[in-house]
């Protein structure tokens, strides 16, 4: 097994998905909101980047808008689009609680997925937008560059959330999570704070979406299925929802597992199709076993001293 590509892809995808996991951690563990549609904000960011940087349509293209802007314009557009989608979906749904909120956000993500699939004028339907603009400075290996970019972006998000949560605003969030009524009594506008968290946490997800579009140079509805949401949730539960480091560790561990399973040579079994299903089974088994014993969560609990 070649170690270097493995490390590179774990760092790239691990850091990128860790941004999503951290946002989910803030929403869930601090804001008390169960968001099961996180992939939609990721998709919004990726599509925004693609549409802003894409060349105008030609030939068989069915999309209407391509602004041919430089890559940094796309990077600016992505978080705006993600936050806008969060505001649009958060405004009517945030008064729902628990599983209802979870399933409604899930529904919104499916609606967006179905919309992108059927409405060819936005993202070219199931074909998607290909050959997405990729900043490519000469002399630097792109794989290394994007791994570094993902790590930097992940650390920036981590710092941003740490500062946010340590601020009075973060303490207000904790108060709301722990006792809504008490927080309301001391004058905290719960609905507003929830909405702000929802929109604020969508911004790093949108940026991660732009990075994803750059790395894959393709956005298509099939890349943004509920599987991404499941992956991020599993990572969060795996790492333990109490600490932001847990979110990062959980994601890195999960992506490492997946890449290891993927890197295992399956030549002995019949064909790639069986290999793919074996990967699915093994991945599922790993989830079940880790959720059963929750090693990382236990470590975090011992460290913080909470039961």
């Amino acid at each position, binding site marked *: 097994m070649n170690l270097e590509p493995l490390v590179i892809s774990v760092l790239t995808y691990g850091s990128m998905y860790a941004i999503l996991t951290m946002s989910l951690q803030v929403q869930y563990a601090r804001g008390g909101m169960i968001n099961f549609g996180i992939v939609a904000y990721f998709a919004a960011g990726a599509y925004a980047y693609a549409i802003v940087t894409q060349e105008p349509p030609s030939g068989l293209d069915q999309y209407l808008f391509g602004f041919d802007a430089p890559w940094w314009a796309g990077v600016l557009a992505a978080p705006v689009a993600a936050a806008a989608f969060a505001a649009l979906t958060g405004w009517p749904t945030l008064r729902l609680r628990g599983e209802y909120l979870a399933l409604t956000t899930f*529904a919104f993500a499916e609606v967006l997925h179905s919309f992108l699939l059927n409405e060819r004028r936005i993202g070219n339907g199931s074909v998607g937008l290909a050959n997405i603009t990729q900043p490519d400075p000469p002399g630097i290996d792109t794989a290394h560059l994007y791994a570094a970019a993902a790590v930097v972006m992940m650390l920036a998000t981590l710092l941003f959330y740490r500062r946010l949560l340590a601020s009075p605003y973060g303490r207000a969030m904790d108060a709301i999570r722990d006792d809504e009524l008490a927080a309301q009594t001391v004058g905290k506008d719960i609905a507003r704070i929830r909405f702000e968290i929802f929109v604020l946490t969508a911004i790093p997800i949108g940026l991660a979406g732009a990075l994803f579009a750059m790395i894959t140079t393709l956005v298509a509805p099939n890349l943004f299925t509920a599987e991404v949401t499941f992956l991020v949730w599993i990572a969060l539960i795996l790492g333990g929802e109490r600490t932001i480091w847990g979110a990062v560790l959980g994601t890195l561990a999960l992506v490492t597992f997946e890449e290891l399973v993927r890197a295992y040579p399956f030549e002995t079994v019949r064909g790639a*199709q069986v290999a793919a299903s074996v990967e699915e*089974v093994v991945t599922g088994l790993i989830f079940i076993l880790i959720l059963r014993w929750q090693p990382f969560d236990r470590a975090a609990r011992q460290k913080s001293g909470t039961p």
Partner: protein
Amino acid sequence: MMLFLQFLVSGFVTGCFLILATIGFSLTRRVEGFLNIAHAELIGVGAFTCWGLNALLGVHVVVAAVVAIVVTAFLGLFVGRLVYDPIRRFGPAVLLITSVGVAYVIGGTLDGVIGTGIRTLDIPLATTYRIHGLRITDYQLVMVALAALSAIALAVFLNTTKVGLAVRAMADNPGLAASRGIDVATTSRITWLLASGLAGLAGVMLAVTATLSTDIAFHQILQILAVAILAGLGSLYAVIWSGLIVGICMDVSVYWIPAGYRPLIAFAVVILVLLVRPQGLAGARAS
């Protein structure tokens, strides 16, 4: 107008399938207290067990159907005991995520064993009846009849039998049920058998009325979730109404907008209803 009525009829049949598919899911949610995403994979197991026995081994479709339902029921029970019971204390979120892992395992096994491609049962072609110009096939009528029968049987079971009452007691308050001398372990086992058996039945009906491929489960879970949310999670009787509403809305929508939007319609209905009634159609208590 005729076309519209035809869509209405097929929507009603779709609704009956959704009732079969969702009722076990809602039962699990009520009694075991979590959303079992792997429920849809059990529908796949039911469908492909029936297909394997019937199309590969030449077993009569009725026998194959019964075996498929029993196999699915016991698989559900086995998974419940082996996987979910030990982690019950971690709470609904961990159970929910674990059920995604279970879905991966069952789905991956199905993929590996069955492979890609479209499958059909080895049964006679459907006979189409025409009633005032509206078409309905005999298999669709069987679907409607089985959905009605299952709903009635479940209602009778839950309301009149001792075991059924225990299931209801446990659904309402597990702690109280246990302290009143209800055997929680046995009741839980019966719930798993019932819920998974119903998933098996839904799978059999899917195999009878549609073509099968191994990715069916994911499409089912989306619709099951839509029906279950609309019904107010875990409410059993409301599943009947919301199944019909979602089924009819999905199929009738084809009259106006492209069929590709069909899955979107289910969720659009759900979102609209939740905006007006945040607890679903029948939900009364806080979640």
